[in-house]
């Protein structure tokens, strides 16, 4: 029962939503709509569970007396949580806005901005013409960069034209092939889940 019920639920959900795509039958449409609404609700519950799980894990770290970071994380989580819950204005409360604008946003932006430095260093070390394929990657990358930035157009007016061609022709062709391959793979995996052949997501071995 414990293993079969989730498989049956997955089967019914998968079949109903798939049938709804191809056939316009009211009962199937209604069921499909209900499944989708439940999924949105489940996602919200999962967020809550995720928060609870983080508190559980980091509480253990604090008990082991080795995590100042865990204490900061839990304190920040609880402060934001209660500010959002207790103040009827929610995310529009001045305190919440202050934390979002002056702590969360600068921290998030800073972490992402640091990528610029790592990417510059990584490009310098990785983009070497070790063979023909690396040379193609290198030249196309440089041409796209030069065509995208203003200074490239100043140096040679054809950089933007070449950059657009690379994006439109070889890139589109390669991405379409990859997308279609990935989509076919998804169809295969979805079929296995619906038919109960794939049980990894249920925690089965």
């Amino acid at each position, binding site marked *: 029962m414990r293993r079969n019920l989730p498989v049956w639920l997955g089967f019914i959900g998968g079949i109903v939503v798939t049938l709804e795509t191809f056939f316009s039958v009211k009962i199937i449409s209604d069921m499909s709509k209900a499944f989708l609404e439940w999924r*949105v609700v489940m996602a919200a519950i999962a967020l809550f569970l995720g928060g609870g799980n983080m508190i559980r894990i980091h509480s253990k770290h604090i008990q082991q007396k080795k995590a100042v970071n865990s204490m900061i994380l839990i304190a920040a989580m609880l402060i934001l949580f209660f500010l959002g819950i207790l103040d009827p204005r929610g995310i529009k409360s001045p305190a919440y806005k202050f934390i979002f*604008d002056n702590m969360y946003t600068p921290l998030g932006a800073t972490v992402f901005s640091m990528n610029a430095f790592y990417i510059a260093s990584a490009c*310098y070390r990785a983009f070497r013409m070790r063979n023909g394929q690396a040379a193609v990657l290198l030249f196309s990358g440089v041409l796209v960069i*030069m065509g995208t930035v203003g200074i490239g157009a100043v140096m040679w007016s054809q950089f933007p034209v070449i950059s657009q061609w690379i994006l439109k022709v070889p890139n589109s062709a390669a991405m379409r092939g990859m997308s279609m391959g990935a989509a076919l793979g998804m169809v295969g995996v979805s079929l296995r889940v619906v038919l109960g052949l794939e049980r990894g997501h249920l925690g089965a071995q």
Partner: protein
Amino acid sequence: MLNRLTNIDRRVIYVGLLVVLFIPLYKPLGLPLPITRESKACFEFIGKLPADSVVLMINSTGPSVQAELYPQTLTMARHLMDKKVKIVICSLAVESPAYNTKLFERWAAEYKYENGKDYVILPYKAGGETAMAAIGRDIKSLYSTDDRNVPLSQLPLWSRINSVKDFACVIDISGGESQRWMLGHIQAPHKVPCIAAITAVILAVTQPYFSSGQLVGILSGLNGAAEYELQSKTPGPAAAGMDAQSLGHMWVVLLVVIGNIAYIASRSQSKKK
């Protein structure tokens, strides 16, 4: 010497990048910006929308991608408001509602836009692709109140919406993969024109959908936002940052060229030995 050029210390690279980013911020260079056909198509499509039509913006901006996505949202929203197009905006990322509020706090008064009548801010919905599918299937039953907890049935703009087909255009603003969800759940089944505002890093993935005509336009990264600002003649934060980005890219290209010249020279030297 060659060995030093093939192994430049990373601190030199970091300081060099910092310097080239600061120069244009201190003294703007006014470099020209080529307008890509993706952003041109986007601007022209929005420019042709009739006044009083309604556009749905699906926002997934967060602090990590706000440098690219918020200027895009800002410039498109200003263009829409300038055209008197009504805006419904919703969030698929948990941080995005703050940006939606900020957007209208800043511009609604200037364009005389009234909450509920000219624009509606919908609350965050969890679920990612499922939420997008629910928007495509039945947006009316997905949302019952706006971000202020006012019932949507009381808002005049919402009474004009029965399904996603009632939107003249859907704009997805995201640094993830939600533009593909939009195509799958809104563009393909309902044939609603769609625009993607994305981070530059995912242009290669998104561009084929523009070539195929599934997307009517793309705004890619800070470049896209700056191109839009230039076309709409409303210079903003994106155009101001483009010189710095331009020089930053040039620094990367210069490093790659130096590294390769040194690498090839050292390889030919070692062959001779």
